[in-house]
């Protein structure tokens, strides 16, 4: 039984596997959930993942950037799994989603701070797609039981006044865009962002009538085409700062995107520092380190990035 490093790809998924007699390492990329945002490529310590812009098919919506993983470089550390904002990558060891890189503190966990107050939920009729651009929210009528929340109009009094709703968010795959916060009454759903950052479009460079960035952005209402000048304008309220638009944008510097902070659990790890540097910038990474007060690590970073850090901080 020789060592087998397998890679197979279907329309829906990309699967990498190490078949070792006593252990099985597997990475599954869910192509439906993947938006091609490059976060995985940035955090991969082995630089095994590439995200590439795809040619725009004639007369159709632009395709999201394509993610490919080099099976000869991947070591199944799970960094991509941990940091994918859309939960599109799943790394398992012997079928279990237990990642040693998190357990040993080599990588932090991304914090999905989602608070739902079901008590405050009014009895409103809302479609899953309308509440969440990714369709991750499901509403259940908790009482009366065995009734669907799809059609509340059929409810009659007195059930109607006593009826209550349970809201569930598929948090594993949620990029925390905050769209739902707006769609539901204030205070019912609260969420912290995964990334903080800046996004802007340089109107001078943005080509007229081009909607590629809009095509690839998975979140509604972030990028919008203005009728007057046929250019794209940004509403960064719901922006995840995932960067799919930036990868897809065909013009250099037309779309500017920068992440400044990642919401994550605390770790002390060189691999994470490097990933953070690539996700944000050397300056932002150094800021975080400073905040942590971890002098030793900061010194090692200083050594690595040299004078650049001195200048920026």
């Amino acid at each position, binding site marked *: *039984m*020789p*060592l*087998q490093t397998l890679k197979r790809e279907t329309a829906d998924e990309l699967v990498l596997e*190490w078949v*070792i*007699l*006593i*252990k099985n390492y597997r990475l599954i990329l869910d192509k439906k959930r993947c938006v091609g945002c490059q976060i995985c490529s940035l955090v991969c*310590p*082995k630089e095994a993942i590439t995200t590439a812009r795809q040619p725009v098919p004639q007369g159709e919506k632009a395709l999201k950037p394509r993610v490919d993983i080099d099976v000869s470089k991947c*070591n199944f*550390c799970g*960094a991509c799994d941990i940091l994918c904002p859309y939960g599109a990558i799943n790394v398992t060891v012997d079928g279990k989603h237990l990642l*040693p*890189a998190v*357990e*040993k*503190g*080599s*990588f932090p966990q991304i914090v999905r701070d989602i608070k739902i107050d079901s008590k405050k939920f009014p009895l409103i009729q809302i479609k899953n797609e309308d509440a969440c651009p990714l369709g991750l929210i499901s509403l259940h009528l908790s009482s009366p039981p065995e009734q669907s929340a799809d059609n509340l109009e059929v409810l009659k009094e007195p059930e109607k006044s006593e009826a209550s709703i349970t809201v569930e968010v598929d948090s594993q795959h949620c990029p925390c865009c905050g769209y739902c916060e707006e769609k539901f009454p204030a205070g019912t759903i609260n969420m912290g962002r995964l990334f903080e950052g800046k996004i802007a479009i340089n109107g001078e460079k943005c080509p007229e009538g081009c909607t590629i960035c809009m095509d690839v952005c998975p979140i509604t209402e972030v990028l919008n085409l203005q009728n007057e000048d046929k250019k794209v304008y940004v509403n960064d309220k719901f922006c995840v700062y995932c960067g799919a638009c930036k990868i897809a944008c065909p013009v250099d510097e037309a779309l500017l995107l920068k992440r400044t902070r990642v919401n994550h659990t605390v770790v*002390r*790890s*060189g*691999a*994470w520092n*490097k990933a953070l540097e690539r996700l944000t910038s050397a300056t932002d990474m150094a800021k975080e380190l400073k905040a942590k007060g971890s002098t030793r690590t900061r010194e*090692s970073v200083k050594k690595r990035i040299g004078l650049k850090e001195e200048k920026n901080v």
Partner: protein
Amino acid sequence: MSKGTARKRSALRKERTTSTKKALIQKEEPRVGVFICQCGSKISSVVDVAALTDYAKNLPGVAYVESMDYPCSRQGQDGIADAIKKKKLERIVVAGCSPRLYEPTFQSCLSKTELNPWLFEMANIREFASYCHQNAPEEATEKAKDLVKMAVAKAKLLEPLKPLHLPMTKKVMVIGGGIAGINAALDLADMGFKVYLVEKSETIGGYMALLDKTFPTLDCSICIEGPKMVDVGRHPNIEIISYADVMKVDGHVGSFRVKIRKNPRYVIAANCTGCGECRDACPIEYPNYADMYLGVRKAISIPFGQAVPLTHTINRDYCIECYKCVDACGAREAIDFDQKPEEIDVTVGAIVVTVGYGMYNPTDLQWTGYGKFSNVFTALEFERLILAAGPTGGKVIRASDGQKPHSVAFIQCVGSRDINKFEYCSSFCCMYTLKHAVMLKEKYREAIEVYVFYNDMRSNFKGYEEFFNRAQKSGVKFLRVKLENRRILENPKTKNLTVFGENEDGEQVTAETEMVVLANAAVPSESASELAKILNIPLGKDGFFVECQSKIRPTDTEVPGIFLAGACQGLKDIPYSVAQGSAAAAQAASVLSKNSWVVEPIIAKVDEDLCSGCKICESACGYQAISVVKTGEKSTARVDEGLCRGCGICSSACPMDAITMPNYSDIQIVAQIQAVAKRKLKKQ
């Protein structure tokens, strides 16, 4: 080069030729003694020795001729020495067998007299006359006459020479830390020589360290080898240079200059205590070669528990640089991510090559199903399965379902004894298969069926045939099949395997089993071909190093001071490798114990005035013995006396006639040719 210099050089050339001629052709012809050997009857039964003796007597310059039964015998040598004294002989010709065999004998005979040992010439009238012209005695005699005439013509022009002495470095390098290298290193170190043991991988031990048991005694392999490995690690005379490659070897016996590259482990060996705390902190695992990739190891780890040196290594191909190991190591500060490859130069007097072997990956032998059917294993994989410290904790399990198999088939000669793959027999597979079969059968008894599909069972050393009998008695089923038309098929549902073979009568032999183990061929070590180039020692057609003489010099190479031991010379089992390791150590010690290495003075001589520095000799030399170096204003060829083997190719290649071979100069060779060709021309 300007025309003027060319002209000057050409004039110089003429002058040199005449002056050498003058020096060699003395006014008074030297007195030549010819001794004709009858070699029992091996010469005299074909060549008319009496006629040859008469003929020799009449040759110009010959002062004395004697026909002897065996000049090489003690009486013969005494006779020659006596004649030299009594007949005042100044040159000696022995007409007998090959100088390759007996020239040293006669030279040592001459050295006991007043004559210089190089005033000696041999005419090979045995191989060149009596042996090859057995059915034409008259012609054989004529040829023998010519050969003697030529030898006499040359003998008259011979010069006295002095042997060269090369300095001896009392250190030795052993390349390869398998069981053969370990034994060679320990023996040499115990004899008091400083030993550098260079090992390519992280630990010494070689394949033996990966085995469970050894045949035919079923001793635990690492329990025997482990203490020896520790002894090597602790020996004050041994320096292990592990995780290192030999990059370049210059020089010659007595002073080989070796350049070694130590690959970075990213762990400072001196600070690493081998505690393994870094290993526990490391989050990353990768397939372990020492487990034949059936198990995993951490990105910072040792390949197996008994590793020597017990220094951890970071595999940067897998490491994610989280520096958890740095934290775990703490104050010991053994981890250094900035480590660079390090080059070291050492000078040694002798080298023992023990680089072992590799294993053939039978994926391309489609009939085996290896790589396609999950329950087909190679023998070394099975070894790791059955080993208690192995990845499964000693449980023999199927890859398809993790269950213990109820039947196992062993297939012999996979790749070996196959004209299209490896023609040779891999020598130890029969015995390790018997070992595996006996271990399975004696452990599980009736709960397991064991089949061995073999063609010939080779159990030809001490205790091996008895072990074969033990296997047969234990209930192992031996099925003799031809090597052609073997097949393995898998049942896609049960993942069981059916083995098909054909017996001598062409009848089908078959067995359905739950696991198949292939005795895949052993092949030359991956580093052998590169090392052959570096050391300038030949590789055989099969890819293994070639010994100098297979019967009587099995551990010598053609390069003085370089010795072979273990499977790199030809596949062999542990006891034989151990014995050969010690043999090579003894050979190396016999070189190292000398105060200087004596070289025969038949070595190219460069006339620096004639040499134009064209480098033609440099490319012609097969031993890298001659190179053009800058000496003052001009560049001239320089000969490394230790490397030059006196083949003369540089001399014939030199367009300036600037290189001469002592006693093989143009004048001496032309004299030989003239001696025989003049007569032939006259006849025509």
